[in-house]
């Protein structure tokens, strides 16, 4: 740590096995202060698992995680809140840390849901709930933000605004962000480092490294989603059901 104070979390060759099947393996990545690292990859490629490894939610992992911060904000991909609990948005905002009213109002305003502050969490729409989740994660002013599909279910204009907000937060708070996103448009424009997963790290680097500079512009817009598909066609290996990787 003394050598590099900017590192927030570092995964060294980590993997996770569930019922004998590898969900993800051989992942190494580093998130530094002020950096946005994005995980991309198809469904079931281990993006969320990697995030949970980095957060310390999954125990019994392979490899090691070096974590240099305790100030963490997390937006999970799926959240199942039990509605036997009477919970307002306000109660949810102070779930893991006590915050003053001003901080809460600021965060809720930033994500555009200040009017929902006293509403019951169970009555929110998917998009509204997502905005509350993001507000909660940023309100604590964390050093490390882990955002797993943070804008799912949010309307189109809101999506762009929220991604701009995420970028702004990373600059203002100088926090590190580990982002999982399907929106390649955003991935390519706002990210410092991209890691492409498919059960293991397929490739990683700057967005430009991942999707070559000329292609990157061409792939903007409707064709953006093809970045992944084209990339996958370059695989030099196949994945067996057990998660083994065989070279062609």
């Amino acid at each position: 740590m003394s050598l590099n104070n900017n590192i927030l979390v570092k995964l060294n060759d980590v993997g996770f096995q569930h019922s004998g099947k590898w969900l993800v393996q051989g992942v190494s990545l580093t998130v530094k202060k002020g950096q946005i690292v994005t995980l991309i990859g198809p469904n079931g490629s281990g993006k969320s698992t990697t995030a949970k490894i980095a957060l310390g939610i999954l125990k019994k992992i392979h490899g090691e995680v070096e974590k240099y911060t305790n100030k963490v904000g997390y937006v999970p991909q799926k959240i199942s809140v039990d509605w036997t609990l009477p919970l307002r948005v306000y109660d949810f905002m102070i779930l893991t840390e006590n915050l003053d009213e001003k901080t809460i109002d600021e965060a809720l305003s930033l994500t555009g849901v200040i009017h929902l502050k006293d509403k019951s969490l169970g009555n929110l729409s998917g998009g509204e709930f997502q905005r509350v989740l993001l507000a909660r994660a940023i309100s604590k002013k964390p050093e490390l933000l882990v955002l797993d599909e943070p804008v799912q279910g949010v309307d189109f204009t809101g999506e762009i605004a929220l991604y701009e907000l995420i970028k702004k937060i990373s600059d203002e708070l100088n926090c590190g962000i580990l982002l999982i996103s399907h929106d390649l448009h955003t991935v390519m424009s706002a990210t410092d480092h991209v890691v492409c997963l498919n059960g293991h790290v397929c490739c990683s680097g700057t967005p430009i490294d991942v999707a070559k500079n000329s292609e990157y512009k061409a792939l903007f817009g409707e064709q953006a989603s093809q970045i992944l598909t084209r990339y996958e066609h370059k695989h030099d290996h196949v994945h067996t059901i057990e998660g083994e990787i065989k070279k062609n």
Partner: protein
Amino acid sequence: MFDDFFIRALVAGLGVAFVTGPLGCFVVWRRLSYFGDTLAHSALLGVTIAYSLEFNIALSVFIISSLIALILVQLQNRTNLPGDALLGLLAHSSLAVGLVVIGFLTFIRFDVMGLLFGDILAVTVDDLYIIWIGGALILLVLRLIWKGLFASTVNYELAEAEGLNPDRAKAIFTILMAAIIAISIKMVGLLLITGMLIIPAAMARNISDSPQKMIIYSIIGGLLSVIIGLFSSLEFNTPSGPSIIAAALFLFVISLFKIKQTIKLKN
């Protein structure tokens, strides 16, 4: 002041209600009612051990209930049986073993009904100390683990990710459950302790929109149940535990009407 058995019972019951209020909310939120039942059933074994070894009842019940909780965790890790089957196994077998042991202890006269359903006559001044000091300790510890316990009740992964150590909070909460059963067994009886935990909390859920309110209403509901229950127990010569629980049920039914009214207002 504590010379009168009824005053003693009232003071004991109110002390219990202060603690079952908040703990009961967590039992409802975390769906632990059957777990509470299991710990309560195992308390019989604790009582018999206390009698045969001439040991403090509350302490003995606390130890046995904690032990049962520990065994449950071990069984969950080592077998493929579903949680409710394991709970049933432990609840009924510990109750059975407790009753068998009573059968052997022919030299002691047991008031089995009192154990199962509570006995206000049995409350001594010592019990009052145990209830109020023990209860204050339980609430203090609950206050200390509140953040982690509550956050993990809402969502385990958020609590774990943001450093609140939910596993530790859960383990401590289990010990608190054993402790509340230990201090309230004489008042409510082991078959009805879970009712004292759940019914006021369920009543409170019907009329609250925030966790804090639910806890406060749950405490108030418990206190009212104890007062109404004990006075009717005295009046009609009914066992204290069932009377308290029946009063709690009465409050629960009233709270249902409150919901209907709010729904009507909305329409």
